[in-house]
């Protein structure tokens, strides 16, 4: 069941597709759960962590074989391996950079992953491409039922599922959709959208979740309140709001195509030029230009690339993945050179 990394980064969500995939890159639903009668992982006394880890491991081992979960003890992985998992959206920065006994379990398609001993004992998430919150919830809900029949979760009829931070209490459900909103940025409407998002009690998070930065016009939108309403109500509310944002972005794209096509084409082709000819490029700059290429693909200004290939390049040009491709550790400036070489090679192949 244990893995030795490095592993193939191919995950089902990378293939793209699903409703509104031109804007909604991925949908994710995570459930926070804790075992009854154990301190939360955030308690200063860390002695419960090992027994929680082995209880959860046993529960996963007793799942039907067909589920095929891989178990990976994070504290035994190298720094590079932990960051590969982070860049693949399988674990959070907190779990990657944390201390003490902690683990990850994931299914073969890497569409479901479970962090053990992050802020809560269990953080189970399902990730899929496009706007498919209900599908994501259905798969994580099924795993939740399977684990709940093997382990007793901390729960109170008053508060619901009990979590280390009261902002997750109740359903323990956090739904996030990664949206690509370049046209709203180009037309300077993005601030207005952010304000509306906060008014709808949702939050904008960065590329790797809470406390990380947004990059390349990719924004992760998630619900702020996890209690008081059922899972299905929270998801239905989220989906309605996300659809409204998607229609704003679509309108902005149409406007750009109708009224400012030369400007739009210029931005996209300049990005292509930089990615095809640059000799050193930072991760942030690469993401900015790949984001423009993504817009080029969905507006059919570029026809030699697919959404899937862009998504793959976005992942592979991240620091840890790049070092895995090169086969050894690289300093920051060496990475910038390797990244430029890798992107140049990949784009020239598509011509």
């Amino acid at each position, binding site marked *: 069941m244990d893995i030795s990394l490095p592993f193939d980064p191919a995950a089902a969500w990378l293939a793209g597709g699903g409703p509104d995939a031109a804007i909604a890159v991925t949908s994710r639903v995570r459930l926070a759960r*804790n075992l009854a009668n*154990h301190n939360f992982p955030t308690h200063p006394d860390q002695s419960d962590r090992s027994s929680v880890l082995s209880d959860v491991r046993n529960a996963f081992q007793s799942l039907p074989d067909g589920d095929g979960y891989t178990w990976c003890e994070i504290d035994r992985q190298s720094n590079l391996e932990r960051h590969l998992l982070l860049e693949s959206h399988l674990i959070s920065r907190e779990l990657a950079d944390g201390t003490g006994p902690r683990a990850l379990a994931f299914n073969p398609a890497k569409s479901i992953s479970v962090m053990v001993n992050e802020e809560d004992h269990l953080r189970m998430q399902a990730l899929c491409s496009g706007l498919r919150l209900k599908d994501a919830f259905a798969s994580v809900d099924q795993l939740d039922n399977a684990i709940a029949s093997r382990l007793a979760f901390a729960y109170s*009829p008053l508060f619901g*599922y009990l979590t*280390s931070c*009261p902002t997750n209490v109740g359903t323990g459900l956090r739904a996030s959709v990664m949206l690509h909103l370049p046209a709203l940025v180009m037309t300077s409407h993005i601030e207005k959208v952010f304000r509306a998002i906060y008014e709808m009690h949702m939050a904008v998070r960065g590329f790797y979740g809470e406390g990380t930065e947004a990059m390349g016009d990719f924004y992760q939108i998630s619900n702020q309140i996890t209690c008081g309403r059922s899972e299905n109500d929270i998801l239905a509310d989220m989906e309605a709001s996300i659809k409204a944002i998607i229609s704003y972005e679509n309108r902005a794209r149409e406007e750009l195509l109708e009224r400012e096509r030369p400007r739009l084409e210029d931005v996209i082709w300049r990005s292509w030029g930089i990615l095809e000819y640059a000799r050193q490029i930072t991760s942030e700059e690469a993401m900015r230009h790949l984001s423009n290429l993504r817009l080029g693909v969905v507006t059919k200004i570029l026809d030699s690339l697919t959404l899937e290939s862009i998504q793959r390049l976005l992942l592979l040009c991240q620091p840890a993945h790049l070092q895995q491709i090169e086969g050894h550790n690289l300093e920051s400036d060496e990475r910038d050179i390797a990244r430029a070489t890798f992107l140049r090679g990949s784009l020239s192949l598509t011509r």
Partner: protein
Amino acid sequence: MLICQICKKKQATIHLTDIHNNVKKEVHMCEGCASEKGFSLQSAADIPQLLGLASKKKVASPQAVEEDIVCPVCGQRWSDFNSRGRLGCPNDYQAFEPRLRKLVESQLSSWHPGEVSLHSGKVPPGAPPDLSRQLTRIHNLERELRQAVEMEHFEEAARLKSEISRLKVV
């Protein structure tokens, strides 16, 4: 004109403000009383201590200091939660119930004013049923039953009636 809170005679020309645990305290003094308490504009006096002295005499407010509570299971204090933002164990929700309830309700009311139930989602297997939800459901069904009877939808009414009696047994 503000009067010195210590001698209660002279005009207060020195004004101190201290904010502790979101509770704001103010003290107004004349120069004489201030220097007697060891405070001058140059020497950084212990302002909370000074305020403490003053509060004994007058400013004592009922909500000034929140009493600390300890969870008997994990030893976490309410003050630990206030500073770290994380709880220690599931039992904290019982140990700090009124305070956490207030906190969670305030998050909720900003979102859905008038929402009654803190939790109305999934329940793990074997967990006790949420009674408040059960009662709300019965209440709603009884209203539907009255409407069905008024509309003479007797088949529907019979179904609702058996549903209600089933829930009442639970």
